């Protein structure tokens, strides 16, 4: 079997996985297509997901549904001001019987890590996540412990203006591939949600659509989706435009361009396509970029930046075939 065939097969598997994943999530998350598409995109692209919204719209449910659907173990960390870095990464414990330091892995050693209310943890603890998110390993006492692959951090955060929050540091925000609000469902969906106790029942009945290994290979297939030169240039142009946009203090980093393209690849897979078109870039740009921008009115949440990114999408010329 030739390499090309293998790629096609993997890609087909990835497309099938993507469709199944979206169907599964739809069972739980009623009327939040944007959020679950963002979640599926993050899952396929191998990036981390940041969910920002007011409490009670189903942030945690979405994270749980995603973990369950992917057949992965979920470990959950509840953010609060007293949380210590070692509470996330793990700790070396001295074992009196063997007289040795034994590493007890923290909750981060899981395929899917849900960090609830991330911005209630102090910056010190947030920074513990930095290494794990980027390097996908934990270094304690000079010894590195690799995290299980695939590894995905799903963090939820309360809007920054709420009480008792620590603003996330920019470097941490930049490490999330995608940030999405969930938004209030419409009236019909909200009524159904109320009847179904916020999707908890559906969550209990949810079946996995794959194993972490299949998930992993789907991620690899997604990363191999070809991106045409002009589409890549379009993505870069959007990122560059954020740096000179009015009202923006700090624009998107080069890392943002990388994740914009990878997210676009995942979006293409979700659209059952084996190539990336400019529409994919457009579709993921808001979710992918807006949390990375530091606007002049720094006190607002993603909403402000999202409108900046939308404005840029309205003005950046798209490539012409």
């Amino acid at each position: 079997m030739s390499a090309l065939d293998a790629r096609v097969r993997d890609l087909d598997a990835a497309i099938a996985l993507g469709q199944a994943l979206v169907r599964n999530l739809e069972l739980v998350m009623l009327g939040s297509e944007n959020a679950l598409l963002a979640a599926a995109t993050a899952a396929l692209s191998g990036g981390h997901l940041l969910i920002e919204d007011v409490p009670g719209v189903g942030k945690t449910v979405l994270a749980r549904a995603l973990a369950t659907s992917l057949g992965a173990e979920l470990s959950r960390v509840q953010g609060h001001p007293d949380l210590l870095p070692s509470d996330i990464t793990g700790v070396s414990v001295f074992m009196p019987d063997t007289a040795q330091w034994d590493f007890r892995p923290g909750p981060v050693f899981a395929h899917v890590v849900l960090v609830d209310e991330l911005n209630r943890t102090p910056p010190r603890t947030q920074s513990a996540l930095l290494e794990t998110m980027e390097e996908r390993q934990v270094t304690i006492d000079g010894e590195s412990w690799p995290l299980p692959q695939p590894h995905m951090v799903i963090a939820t955060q309360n809007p920054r203006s709420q009480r008792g929050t620590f603003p996330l540091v920019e470097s941490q925000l930049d490490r999330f591939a995608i940030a999405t609000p969930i938004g209030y469902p419409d009236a019909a969906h909200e009524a159904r949600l109320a009847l179904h106790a916020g999707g908890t029942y559906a969550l209990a009945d949810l079946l996995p659509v794959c194993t972490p290994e299949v998930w992993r290979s789907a991620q690899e297939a997604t990363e191999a989706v070809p991106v045409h030169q002009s589409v890549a240039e379009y993505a870069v142009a959007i990122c560059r435009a954020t740096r000179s946009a009015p009202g923006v203090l700090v624009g998107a980093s080069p890392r943002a361009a990388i994740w914009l393209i990878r997210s676009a690849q995942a979006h293409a897979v979700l659209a059952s396509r084996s190539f990336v078109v400019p529409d994919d870039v457009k579709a993921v740009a808001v979710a992918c970029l807006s949390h990375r921008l530091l606007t002049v009115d720094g006190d607002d949440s993603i909403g402000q930046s999202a409108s900046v990114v939308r404005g840029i999408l309205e003005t950046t010329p798209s490539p012409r075939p």
Partner: protein
Amino acid sequence: MSRWARPARPVAPIFVAVVIVALWWLVAHNGGSGWVQFLGDLVFGALCIGVLGPWLVVTRARLTVRGAPSDGVAGLPVDIRVDAGSRLRIRPVDPPGDEVFVGPARQKGAVDDRVTVVPVRRGVRDTVTVDIASAAPFALQWWTRRVQLPLPSTLHVSPRRGRPRPPSTSPQEDVGEVRQQPRTDMGLPRGARRYVPGDSRRIVHWRATAHAGKLMVRELEQPSAGPVTITVDLPDDPEEAERVAEGVLGTVAQLLDTGAPVLLGTLEPSGPVLAPVTDRLGAGRRLARAVARRADAAAP
């Protein structure tokens, strides 16, 4: 608002130019030499453009503020980024600042765009007033014009952080009024629950663990302290009000550093506001917006 451009002092170059042209023409016309008259025409053209060109440049100058911070501190410089189509000399008037040149610079592609202003007092401003001047293209005469530049976002100039005032318990004692409620204790234990990853080891309830055989943690009430309420009553005199605001900011910052929640009560143009402040920035903004109580208005 933009006033007409006017020649900047000294205006001597204009008179010198007029005298030169008049003398030259007198000599050329009566000397009978066509070349002298022709040269005089060229000199007239150059002086004309040198003296009147800057008027056109200054009148047509496009100057917009591209970026400005939304917060500043009285007495400390605030950097503003401006977009200028042509090279201009800028002297900030309100708030004042040093003279700078903005616009395209000699190196290809380089642009000077930084204007530094130093707000004297706290306050909220949507515009800065600057004098723009130019002597393009020949540097013979400067023309200047005063323009108000709208800022892209409101600039909150917070007061300096003054010396904290000792909390006073008698509200009517002073103009800058600070009232502190006693802090309640930290959260009280309410019960115990199962350990979940992420829980601090400090709250492990050892006795309950031993009892249950599983790791248990204490469950606390919301850890909180009773908020300190500070009501700001600014005097009419701006200088004095500035001092009071500085003192209040110092007090609030000190309280926030100790971790105490603070409720700040101020009088804003829209009416009295009593709202919590969580950081210095917020407190500075609130104090920037605060206004003095009008004499005829009833005390809140």
